[in-house]
């Protein structure tokens, strides 16, 4: 018997450490000789902390929301061949739509292996793809295999990977670089973090394969500093790969030499753009430059450089091991293979899911993600982060592939799906994203630097109940100017969240501007909290919870809120017992 505990950032935050301690203590107490393994995140974040029991037949039982005091019962039960049904979330006959609906290619090892042990990775077929490439393929054949697979860049733009590799190979140069873009900046996306924390070797192996294909001698992983655990596990993995001879001089006697180092980002969203990333690697401000020349021609230090995303590299490893045709057999005509999505926001089962391209948004959000928390009504799903847009309920049958998502005005991006329900204000969401892009604009292009600021001002005005007629037209006009006048995709796509919300939720904008009303009760300037005197029993809960003490009254008599002092934090609404239901928001 073996047990596995998910120790990704999310698992640890949910309390995996005490569960791990309990597992060691209980195994000793029960005198059980079991292997206790720590793994990365399997993706079922809504059920963290997770504990897997793998019995001697290899059958896996997954327990969710495990508390330290349940661990003893689970271990004792399994030692006698019994399961603990109430905490079982998957396996042992328990169906789980979240896990059963997935096809795991990039995430194949996440949650299964110990990311800090190279032997675990090798046992699951690790480094066989690199061995195949080095021993029996020519660089051109590797590129051909990737071409057959139809793999497109998973970082956002969806550019064919083989094409970039071919260009980088063709361009002359003694020194070429292979860069991994792990500067996952889209708020709401965390697949790269999870992959690096859960299966770092598959990314290293993919980079080495790519380096062999283009003829690179050095690899650099540009990882954001906000991911300390990912960086630590990468450093461990690199050291182990070197020790095992999979990185370094003359890899496994093939004559091919390649090594990788990690460079920590310093916190700038724009550095996800490849030319800005290169500037940052060179120690400069991360400001994009005009393309062409593309990095494949003139990249890091002016040398041919190829840049791919974390998930792309994890796919590369799988493709070279299993063949391009196997990958191309999944997905749609133009979007092959699988894609990892991060489900977050108002969704019931949040986490990471990997599904074949071509499922509908409804299938991903409702069948796999379980629908909306608290069974509220779905309003929109935000895809593509600050460059993307909000897709409304009417378009839930849209298939998830690069072209179909782009048609809605949103953007595949790195695969973040933030689900919103009826309590989310779409004008506020547009304001939120513009606030983000305005802060993150590097300042190089005037249209982006000043345009996003002016758009944000208009949106703030609308949220504050000071919207004027003509504001929507002004926003649309500025959107065109910013789009046309910006060098990189940060500026080009910055207006997308505004344009999609105006396109699909125009009535909500109108309610803010014309009626000075926020239908979702989110914009503070447009709402007020009151207490219904007929329902209030004077239980004092709200008055105690009010941070500015503006709820006045006497116990056992109806209370009132002094509107002038209210900061609209919503605490009163939250604490008012449902049997009274006396606090109103309008």
């Amino acid at each position, binding site marked *: 018997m073996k047990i596995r505990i998910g120790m990704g*950032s*999310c698992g*640890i*935050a*949910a309390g995996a450490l005490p569960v791990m301690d309990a597992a060691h203590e209980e195994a000793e107490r029960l005198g059980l000789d079991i292997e206790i393994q720590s793994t990365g995140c399997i993706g079922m*974040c*809504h059920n*963290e902390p997770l504990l897997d029991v793998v019995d001697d037949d290899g059958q896996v039982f997954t327990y969710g929301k495990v508390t330290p005091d349940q661990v003893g019962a689970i271990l004792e039960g399994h030692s006698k061949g019994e399961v603990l049904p109430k905490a079982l979330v998957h396996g042992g006959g328990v169906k789980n739509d979240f896990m059963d609906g997935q096809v795991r290619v990039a995430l194949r090892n996440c949650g299964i292996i110990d990311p800090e042990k190279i032997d675990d990775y090798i046992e699951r077929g690790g480094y066989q793809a690199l061995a195949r490439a080095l021993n029996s393929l020519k660089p051109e054949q590797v590129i051909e295999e990737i071409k057959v697979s139809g793999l497109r860049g998973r970082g956002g733009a969806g550019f064919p990977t083989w094409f970039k590799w071919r260009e980088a190979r063709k361009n002359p140069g003694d020194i070429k670089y292979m860069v991994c873009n792990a500067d*996952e*900046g*889209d*708020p*709401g*996306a*965390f697949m790269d*973090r999870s992959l690096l924390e859960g299966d770092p070797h598959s990314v290293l192996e993919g980079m080495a394969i790519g380096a062999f294909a283009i003829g690179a001698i050095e690899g650099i992983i540009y990882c954001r*500093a*906000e*991911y*300390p655990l990912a960086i630590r596990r990468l450093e461990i993995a690199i050291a182990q790969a070197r020790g095992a001879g999979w990185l370094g001089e003359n890899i496994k006697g093939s004559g091919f030499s390649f090594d990788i180092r990690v*460079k*920590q980002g*310093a*916190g*700038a*969203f724009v550095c996800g753009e490849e030319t800005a990333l290169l500037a*940052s*690697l*060179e*120690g*400069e*401000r*991360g400001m994009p430059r005009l393309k062409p020349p593309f990095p494949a021609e003139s990249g890091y*230090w002016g040398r041919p450089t190829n840049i791919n995303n974390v998930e792309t590299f994890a796919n590369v490893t799988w493709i070279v091991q299993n063949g391009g045709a196997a990958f191309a057999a999944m997905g749609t005509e133009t979007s092959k293979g699988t894609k990892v999505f*991060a*489900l*977050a*926001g*108002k969704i019931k089962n*949040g*986490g990471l899911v990997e599904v074949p391209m071509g499922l509908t948004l409804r299938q991903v959000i409702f069948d796999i993600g379980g629908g909306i928390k608290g069974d509220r009504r779905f309003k929109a799903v*935000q895809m593509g*982060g600050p460059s993307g847009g909000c897709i409304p309920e009417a378009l839930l049958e849209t298939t998830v592939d690069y072209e179909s998502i782009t048609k809605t005005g949103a953007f595949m991006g790195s695969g*973040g799906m*933030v689900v*919103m329900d009826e309590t*989310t204000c779409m004008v506020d*969401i547009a304001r*939120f*994203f513009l606030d*983000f892009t305005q802060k*993150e604009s*590097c300042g190089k292009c005037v249209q982006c630097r*000043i345009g996003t*600021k002016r758009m944000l001002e208009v949106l703030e005005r609308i949220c504050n109940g000071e919207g004027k007629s003509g504001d929507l037209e002004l926003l649309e006009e500025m959107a065109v100017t910013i789009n046309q006048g910006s060098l990189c995709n940060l500026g080009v796509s910055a207006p997308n969240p505004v344009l999609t919300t105006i396109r699909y939720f125009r009535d909500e904008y109108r309610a803010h501007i014309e009626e000075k009303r926020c239908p979702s009760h989110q914009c503070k300037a447009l709402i007020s909290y009151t207490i219904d005197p007929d329902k209030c029993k004077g239980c004092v809960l709200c008055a105690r919870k009010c*941070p500015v003490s503006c709820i006045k009254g006497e116990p056992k008599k109806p209370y009132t809120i002094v509107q002038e002092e209210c*900061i609209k*934090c*919503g*605490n009163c609404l939250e604490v008012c017992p449902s049997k009274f239901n006396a606090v109103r928001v309008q």
Partner: protein
Amino acid sequence: MQCCCEEKKGSSVRLSDARVDLGLLNEVLDHYREQEGSLVTVLQKAQEIYGFLPLAVMRHIADQMGVKPAKVFGVATFYTQFRFQPVGKYLILLCQGTACHVNGSERIETALCQELKIKAEETTGDGLFTLSNVACLGCCSLAPVMMINGQAYGPLTPDKAVSIVRDLAKKEKALAKEGSENEN
């Protein structure tokens, strides 16, 4: 007419003229001086050593790396990671990503600001806590989330966030008491 950059309070960078031991940087500088393009890394190492970037340190780096102070300052202020004022013992990174935003991160911020009696990007008077808003910590399914000295906490409610901070403050108080008793 006034430039829009002036409107927002706190957008101008306040530099610290703290005097620190520049010798602590020698090893880092010796290692990176000849390496082209290592300015960001040197600044990161310097911040690891001092906890922030005092003016004297930035001048020293410029001098030693053979670049203009304006360049060092320009690069340092470009990236959000770099700080120019000392931070508290506990650095609270409060996630303001999309998932956290729709799940009420603003209420967490209000509660923490009230508890610590500071605004975002400020440090408490006792030097214990700094509250900083960050873009996304990538723990979206636990939204709303905060990270304190590398450890993520979530899903938060205003009460939960406050109690985590209170526990840390209590722990520090106990430690300080123990320390003073030992001295006696």
